[in-house]
């Protein structure tokens, strides 16, 4: 076997694969877990039961994401359930030699379900390559709180992401209708792109939150907290949804702003893991 083919085979054999699939149902007035499927290095744990909702925590036992890895999550919140999803730690995406890592997330919320997708931040190391898709399918009466934070390099360690690839494709359907679509695409000389004022103005962290339903009253509540923000925050509502966008010098500032916005949007407490 030629050396490069052998190296490629070893590389492929060492790539992490992980999948989590489960649903929750409402039984006797509380949210209960239905069938759960876990495989590879992606695991999910259900800590202490809460009032009438359920919390789930994702754990990546591979300890990070490298090029060629593949992770799939498919979660459905049945009618009338309350489900909050988060991650046990910030996800690190390491330098990739060739193929990008692929992350696929599919979320579904049926009638009157309340679904929160609140993972901790994703940290992209220099020369990381990752392609992610998030597809959300909401019933008309379902509600959603979703956030994602991406940090380009560990600023506290003096690290920066200079090049690599980050593609993040979001599609949100409500009652079958596409109400929000966006693909973030950064590749090549990412350091130079992020420096441009219309892109990130040199910021090292970006974030987005989607809130459904979202209206002008919510927008006003969030705007009223503006003096407390540590980075830049924008908020807007249209098509029955609200979207908040964040840009900050580092992950810590962005996380504080995200918590302030989510606090305005949600009656429920944020995952305790966020506060650690």
């Amino acid at each position, binding site marked *: 076997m030629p050396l490069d083919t052998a190296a490629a085979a070893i590389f492929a054999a060492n790539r992490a694969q992980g999948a989590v699939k489960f649903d929750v149902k409402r039984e006797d007035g509380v949210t209960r877990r239905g069938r759960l499927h876990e495989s590879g290095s992606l695991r999910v744990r259900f800590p202490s039961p809460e009032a009438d909702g359920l919390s789930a925590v994702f754990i990546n036992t591979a300890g990070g994401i490298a090029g060629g890895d593949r992770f799939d999550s498919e979660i459905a919140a049945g009618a009338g359930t309350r489900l909050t999803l988060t991650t046990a730690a910030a996800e690190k995406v390491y330098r990739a030699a060739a193929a990008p890592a692929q992350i696929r997330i599919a979320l579904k919320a049926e009638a009157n379900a309340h679904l929160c997708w609140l993972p901790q931040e994703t940290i992209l190391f220099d020369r990381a390559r990752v392609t992610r898709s998030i597809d959300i399918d909401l019933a008309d009466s379902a509600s959603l709180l979703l956030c994602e934070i991406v940090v380009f390099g560990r600023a506290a360690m003096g690290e920066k992401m200079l090049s690599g690839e980050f*593609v993040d*494709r979001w599609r949100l359907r409500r009652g079958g209708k596409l109400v929000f679509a*966006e693909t973030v695409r950064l590749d090549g000389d990412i350091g130079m792109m992020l420096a441009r*004022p219309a892109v990130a103005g040199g910021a090292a962290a970006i974030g987005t939150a989607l809130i459904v339903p979202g209206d002008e009253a919510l927008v006003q509540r969030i705007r009223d907290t503006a003096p407390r923000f540590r980075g830049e925050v924008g908020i*807007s509502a249209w098509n029955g949804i609200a979207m908040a*966008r964040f840009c900050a010098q580092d992950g810590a500032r962005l996380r504080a702003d995200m918590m302030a916005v989510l606090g305005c949007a949600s009656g429920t407490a944020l995952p305790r893991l966020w506060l650690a």
Partner: protein
Amino acid sequence: MIITASPMLTTTSSTDEAAPADAALSAAQGAALYRLMTWLSPAFPVGAFSYSSGIEWAVEAGDIVDAPTLQDWLCAMLRHGAGFCDAVLLAHAHRAAAAQDHAALGEVAELACAYAPSRERHLETTAQGRAFIEIARAAWHSARLDAAISACDGMTAYPVAVGLVSAAHGVPLAATLHGFLHAVVSNWISAGSRLVPLGQTASQRLIAALEPVVIGTGARALIASLDDLGGATFRADLAGMRHEAQYTRLFRS
């Protein structure tokens, strides 16, 4: 103007390069140029002048203070923002309408209406698109127009409207794309130059300086799949959102 624009309107560029400078346009080329210049002129009543795509906030916030900062902002919006994304959506709407593939056209139409980063940017693309379709129906009707419009089910964002009307009139895609990007960037410069403010000569220098960016963005959009859609102008999006709460405003976005 007509001489330099004519090679764009044909599909085979290699022979055009060698065409004599006084070569006449065919009837179809002449019609295509006439229509594109009409539809994408600032005088075409879609209300383009009333939108700034967040530039009004960027000037207020001090991100845009002069010609070089405006140029850098617009360059990013063309390459990594609304310019490239709208061009890709236009290209796919044009192809679907030209092939009379109404299912594909309906999908692009839905995607284009959902692909907005804030309320005012959503208004900007849907209101201009709707106006473009209404004027096309009233003044520029063609046999294939109604079927293409009904395939969109009321969802005609501006690039989709331009793409489908051009296709229904047999106007070539590449020329439409470049014309559209020229209209978009000219409108941004017009807004920026009123707000900074910049003189007419500085504005013209900007349009000239951005020519290669427009050509490059149009060329990328021409070969992009819908999966290649994507951008990164987070702070331009923030500007669009913060514009909603701007105290004194001339523009609707």
